[in-house]
């Protein structure tokens, strides 16, 4: 028997924090390198220089992980 399971959906969100002349751009819930593509336009429009990038593997793992449970039916 095939059963399609949809895991809890995660919102894709871009959080931009403003601190003086600096911006901190955080992305949550993206798959693969979509997050980098999504924020590239914003950083370019803001004339961003000296970008310090921190990848967040905890989200990366969370995106890929699909929680499955074997159910006993009947």
């Amino acid at each position, binding site marked *: 028997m095939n059963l399609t399971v*949809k895991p809890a959906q995660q919102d894709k969100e871009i959080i931009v924090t403003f601190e*003086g002349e600096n911006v901190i*751009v955080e992305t949550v819930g993206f798959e693969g390198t979509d997050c980098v593509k999504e924020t590239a336009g914003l950083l370019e429009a803001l004339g961003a220089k000296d970008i310090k990038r921190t990848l967040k593997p905890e989200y990366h793992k969370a995106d890929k992980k699909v929680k499955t449970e074997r159910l006993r039916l009947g």
Partner: protein
Amino acid sequence: MSHLDEAKTTMKDTEALVRALCSTLSLNRNQIEIHEKAQPIIGYHGTEDRKVGNVIIRKQHSKIPSDVGWEMKDGVLVGHLDTFQYGGSRINYGQAFQVKLTESYNFEKTKMIYEAKGLQVVVCRDSKNRLQLRAKLAKAATQAKIRL
């Protein structure tokens, strides 16, 4: 994947600068001049300072006895500001003002970008009381087929 970028910024957009000036200096839009071709800025002595600006606040509205302006140079808006602290003046256009203006510019520009994309934008403050803009995109649609 998710990530965190931290970067310094530069002002490049006239419209975002005008919005930032309105909010930082509590001005109306019609108190700020916008020129396609840069115009002379009038200094303290009432004479042209040989500086020009594409965005100008005349002294009637600048709250100091001279004009202040921003000139578009090589795609970047460069400020021509009189940073002298005048007696009785309510404002100083020094470093603190410029940092505050850049922050406001970044906020306005980011808001313009995400609103133009039709995204849901929420403005709030974080735990350190920093201004924050949150743009929500469509939910990630992932699913898996399981054979039982």
